[in-house]
């Protein structure tokens, strides 16, 4: 090999190496790619922290201790159960806004929330409001920024629903044993009655006074539309019964006999104050009963907020007996679509028991729209509702 050939070959090696170097460093800008990856890692960690706040709500009592100023979101938020602030868009909005100039979230430095529509940091989304292959039924979108990059996430609302365990259940009042099962099917039902806050998330045009209260003025069609907008359906009567009648032995999925107590908190109905109230003339009402049944006597005695998210069934459903009436679709008996137990009746009413239903035509709230056995108090019926959905166990 001549000296010239050696020089040529070395020069070509240098040229090739330089071209590789140039490609990596200038054309594809690897430093920027690596820094984007590192930014994404930081943003993923920050997302975990946002998710924690979304799920926990005000676990650290920051609202109660006035470290958070959420007047903008909750003008009249008085005493309310902490579960109301879990998976709550307005609470998260407040936390994100306040985190701009206070240490509310222990974010890595320089992470910041980015405003989306209507000058807000959060945006309610569902499959009915946006398109995409992997959207949850509904949730809240948050956009986080860091180092010139931004990451959008959707936080799924998983705080307010219960899975109905797979087993055989019995529908109807205590003396009826109509059986069905949800084996191989995953059914979720709302733990709480749909609140004004929930309805405002879906339809901001409604005007409500108290956000944490159940939405009780909707028509049947509006209730249906609300649930559908969240990819859900109106709760069905037999599913509601499954979630409220205490099933006895939880290990036995298909019991020979069902001992159905009409009161969700006990298996022995005769020990319950309601049993006495409905039978004995010398029954004396006590304020403490309002913790379990919010009857007409309770309206002037205790705040409804104390009851609304409490008095839970074996599956965590709240506000079962008393409170507003509750509409549910009944696929077994069309004329039994209303759990009439409510603050429209005194504690002595026979309506205060599970499985006992009345009928609502769904069109209005005057008593003409109802078929009831007992005459209610108040001028018109206040009716709450909850939604349910099925997750396919096989698809």
């Amino acid at each position, binding site marked *: 090999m001549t000296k010239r050939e050696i020089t040529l070959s070395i020069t070509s090696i240098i040229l090739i190496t330089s071209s590789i170097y140039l490609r990596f460093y200038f054309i*594809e800008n690897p430093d920027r790619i690596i820094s984007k990856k590192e930014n994404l890692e930081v943003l993923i960690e920050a997302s975990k922290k946002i998710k924690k706040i979304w*799920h926990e709500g005000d676990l650290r009592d920051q609202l109660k201790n006035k470290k958070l100023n959420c007047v903008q979101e909750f003008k009249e938020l008085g005493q309310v159960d902490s579960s109301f602030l879990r998976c709550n868009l307005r609470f998260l909005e407040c936390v994100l806004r306040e985190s701009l100039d206070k240490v509310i979230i222990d974010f890595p430095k320089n992470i910041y929330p980015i405003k989306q529509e209507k000058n807000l940091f959060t945006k309610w989304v569902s*499959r009915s409001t946006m398109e995409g292959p992997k959207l949850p039924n509904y949730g809240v979108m948050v956009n986080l920024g860091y180092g010139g990059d*931004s990451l959008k996430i959707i936080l799924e609302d998983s705080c307010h629903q219960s899975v109905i365990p797979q087993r055989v259940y019995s529908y109807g009042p205590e003396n009826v044993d109509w059986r069905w099962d949800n*084996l191989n099917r995953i059914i979720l039902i709302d733990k709480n009655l749909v609140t004004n806050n929930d309805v405002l998330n879906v339809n901001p045009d409604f005007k409500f006074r108290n956000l944490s209260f159940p939405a009780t003025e909707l028509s049947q069609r509006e209730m249906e539309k609300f649930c*559908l907008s969240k*990819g859900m359906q109106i709760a069905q009567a037999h599913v509601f019964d499954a979630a409220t009648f205490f099933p006895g032995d939880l290990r036995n999925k298909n019991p020979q006999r069902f001992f159905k107590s009409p009161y969700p908190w006990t298996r022995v109905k005769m020990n319950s104050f309601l049993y006495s109230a409905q039978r004995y003339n010398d029954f004396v009402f006590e304020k403490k009963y309002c913790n379990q049944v919010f009857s007409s006597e309770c309206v002037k005695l205790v705040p409804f907020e104390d009851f609304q998210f409490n008095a839970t069934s074996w599956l965590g459903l709240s506000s079962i007996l008393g409170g507003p009436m509750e509409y549910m679709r009944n*696929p077994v008996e069309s004329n039994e679509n209303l759990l009439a137990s409510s603050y429209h009746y005194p504690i002595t009413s026979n309506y205060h028991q599970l499985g006992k239903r009345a009928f609502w035509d769904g069109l209005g709230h005057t008593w003409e729209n109802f078929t009831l056995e007992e005459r209610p108090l108040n001028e018109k019926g206040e009716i709450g509702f909850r939604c349910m959905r099925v997750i396919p166990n096989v698809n």
Partner: protein
Amino acid sequence: MLTRYIILLFLVSCQFEKSLEKEIKVFEAYLFLNLTPTYRAKIINEEFINSENPISRPFFTAQPILEFDSLGNDGKSIITYCLIYRIPTSKGFGGWIRLIENACGKKEPEYIANLSAINNLYIWLSSNPVNRGYEKTKPFTLTLKFEKDKKNYKIEIPLLNLSGEEIFLKDSKKLKLSSVSTLRFSNGILPTFVPGVIFFPLDKENQGGKKIQMIGEILDNYASGTSKICHKVNENCESVGEYLCDQCKFGWFETVPTKCSLTGDKFCGIDRCGEKGYPACFRGYKYGFKQTPVSGCNPENKAAFCQKDLNLICDQQGILICD
């Protein structure tokens, strides 16, 4: 003159070593940025995944390993990627791994990420931690372990939107079983890398991808014939076509199983089961004391029920409805 060339060569080789480390970092970053929003992973070749041994045969052939459906374009579309490995020769020559933006088996465009001169590649992906000797991999994480220039490397990419039922063999028609917990007090959230959070891609506003069409309108209902079918099953309990109920704008409902005992056809829209003109409701499998047979589209099917005073009939679509 020659000394100068030697010094120059030495400097180039140092730079090469540095760029080798960087090459791996860049490859990892490309995988990370493109694959983290993955929500579905199709295994093309089962024997290459979660194996105890490195992928070694057939020599010198490019093998598609995994296909990923990832969120693109602000989460609104699907981008499909294929991970391809060219298995090196028995002497460890000629191995590379590439990520391309297309389905596996389709025409290969220019790769998005490439790493050449590698061998002894292991690929792990599972919804549960995989134990292989002293190695334990993380769930919902694509793990690549390989050798390059006689050094071992490991790359871990979290697939943030992936759930257990979305890891499956490509072209499988088997019905998928939901991984949601059904225990008392469970909340219906799928186990994923960060359960309950959907991650969009980082800054991908201008990227393309297959657009998703959401299905249904709020007034659609079965009785008026406007409900759109979103999942169909056949007598062999296989999916006929794709499962599209995740794209229903206003929920969906399942009809009484008549062809396959595991599930019935599903439609987008309002569920008014049991009412006149609507599909019958499903009463279950075992609500009696004995196993209840699910017996076809006929009024004798004990798994179906309607509201009082209505009768079961089989309609033209093979769905049990109430009349």
